[in-house]
């Protein structure tokens, strides 16, 4: 302890300078992390928003930056909870800040090519459940990056092991402090989402994802959930309107970018092309085991694009190259009624002979109904947190987006439209 740690800076289009230290530099320079330069954040969103070519590399740096801001604010504003409920002493702060930064930096290191699109092609674990990209992040940390962390003098001085970092983003319960800080990496209001909304908005060239990060990051605190008594990351009442902005930004980004009519069908074409490319490899990505993790790391966007350019991606690979996507012929409202859903299901059956594909917003990783707890003013009497939706008419009015769409090959569009008209669906 007491040794000075060298810091560096890198320019980021969203946050300005992002600072990192020698330990983080060694990780960033590791080939497993450099691979993230070759994993696009939003897959083929550039087919609609040409600027959206950014990668998981810059998002990971951004998530680390935001997590640091959240950590510092929470340590200050929730000191009492941290000390009394979690025995979190002041001296542990530097160590845990470093662990949280590493967890944020590495939380996406296990993504498949083109991020979420390949996740359905991950293999099953021993219990028959599909592996997640977080399981791959953990395996990469364990098998590839542990040495970089544990041989670093700064990490050694702080007593940090790779397993300390892994525990912050694993699904299963781990140590009590790791559970507390996990909220920053994967929770209702985490550094991941706070970064990607701003970043995706910036690169897509839209204003929908913008919100007041400075205000949110300076007003977060732990709140006790009245329903269960557990703690979750909420907001002080001085940040209420800023966090309203965050939720509206998520809503808008979902409707305008993530679930854009044309953008989302490219997810399907990409997934089909990946499936074709994986056929000679058993139909799945290699599992996150000691023996296979390096074979997984060989998969990145460049490899996929190269194979697609070599016409190995089948018909859907060709569609990606030619931007010859399926066309939307039928969609429900954003919040369909029972009758609408039934009608949609009938239309899907009717168009099944035309290779119709259904895309549903509810299956997206976006969760529109998350509530945020708001801690009342410190000077007030009642210290019980309240649900933001009970305080904000704007948030209460945000309905879950459950829109469903049907797509058919371009050549079948006219026939599908005619059939839908005839069947009374349009």
């Amino acid at each position, binding site marked *: 302890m007491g040794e000075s740690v060298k810091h560096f800076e890198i320019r980021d289009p969203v946050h300005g300078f992002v600072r990192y230290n020698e330990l983080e530099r060694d990780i960033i320079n590791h080939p497993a992390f450099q691979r993230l330069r070759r994993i696009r954040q939003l897959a083929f969103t550039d087919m609609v928003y040409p600027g959206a070519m950014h990668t998981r590399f810059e998002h990971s740096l951004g998530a680390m930056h935001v997590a640091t801001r959240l950590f510092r604010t929470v340590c200050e504003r929730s000191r009492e909870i941290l000390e009394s*409920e*979690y025995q979190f002493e002041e001296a542990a702060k530097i160590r845990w800040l470093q662990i949280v930064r590493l967890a944020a930096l590495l939380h996406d290191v296990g993504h498949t090519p083109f991020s979420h699109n390949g996740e359905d092609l991950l293999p099953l674990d021993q219990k028959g459940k599909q592996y*997640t990209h977080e399981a791959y992040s953990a395996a990469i940390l364990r098998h590839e990056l542990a040495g970089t962390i544990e041989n670093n003098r700064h990490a050694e001085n702080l007593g940090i092991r790779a397993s300390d970092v892994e525990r912050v983003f694993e*699904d*299963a*319960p781990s*140590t*009590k402090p790791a*559970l*507390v800080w*996990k*909220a920053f990496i*994967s*929770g209702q209001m985490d550094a991941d989402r706070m970064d990607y909304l701003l970043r995706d908005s910036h690169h897509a060239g839209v204003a929908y994802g913008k919100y007041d990060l400075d205000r949110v990051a300076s007003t977060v605190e732990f709140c006790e*959930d*009245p*329903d*269960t*008594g*557990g*703690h*979750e990351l909420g907001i002080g009442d001085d940040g209420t309107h800023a966090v309203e902005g965050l939720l509206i930004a998520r809503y808008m980004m979902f409707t305008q970018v993530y679930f854009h009519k044309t953008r989302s069908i490219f997810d399907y074409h990409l997934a089909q092309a990946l499936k074709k490319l994986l056929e000679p490899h058993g139909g799945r990505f290699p599992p996150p085991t000691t023996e296979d993790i390096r074979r997984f790391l060989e998969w990145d966007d460049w490899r996929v694009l190269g194979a697609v350019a070599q016409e190995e991606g089948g018909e859907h690979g060709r569609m990606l190259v030619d931007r010859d996507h399926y066309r939307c012929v039928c969609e429900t409202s954003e*919040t369909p*009624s*029972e009758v609408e859903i039934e009608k949609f299901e009938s239309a899907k059956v009717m168009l099944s002979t035309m290779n119709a594909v259904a895309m549903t917003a*509810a299956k997206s*990783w976006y*969760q*529109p*109904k*998350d*509530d945020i707890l708001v801690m009342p003013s410190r000077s007030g009497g009642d210290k*019980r*947190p*309240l*649900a933001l*939706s*009970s305080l904000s008419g704007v948030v209460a009015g945000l*309905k*879950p987006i*459950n829109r469903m769409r049907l797509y058919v090959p371009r050549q079948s569009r006219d026939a599908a439209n005619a059939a839908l008209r005839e069947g009374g669906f349009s």
Partner: protein
Amino acid sequence: MSERTVTDWDRYALVVRVAGILAEGHAFGRKALQKVFYLLQELAGIPLGYRYRFYTYGVYSFELASTLATVENLKGVVANYDPAFGAYELGRGEKAEALEAKGHAFLAEFGEQIDRIVALARGKTGKILELISTIVFVALNEDLGGVADEQRLLERVAELKPKFSTTQILDQVQELRLRGCLPSE
């Protein structure tokens, strides 16, 4: 375990059924529903397909949160904010019957499992349901040298849920064992 494919309608029907029963005469919130569905999936083996993660507030599935939001939107359940409770209370909505009817076959097929978990959860607060789901999560996911190693189970749960006394944890472990939800030895 059944190889049956569970549809969204089945999940909606189950939300309506469970919320309807457990909200009767008690404040039953969204987070409490999360814990009950965890038990339905992991303890009773109903193949709902939700991915659960563990937080300071216990097990939670973002996919289930989305399902619940949809059911609220379809008026299968209503969520009313109760300032005294400090959270949303669930109750049957005007379309509850119609949604339950859509999952009739599913509810019948898994009726026994549903009844078993509902009986376990009935009358319990969200806090206790969180404790129970944590006990089950630890027992199912951690290598404790066999879940019958009660001392290790109690210590681990106490570490994760420091708000609960050893007696409170032990009470719930014993009830789970009595109901055959955990091995008795």
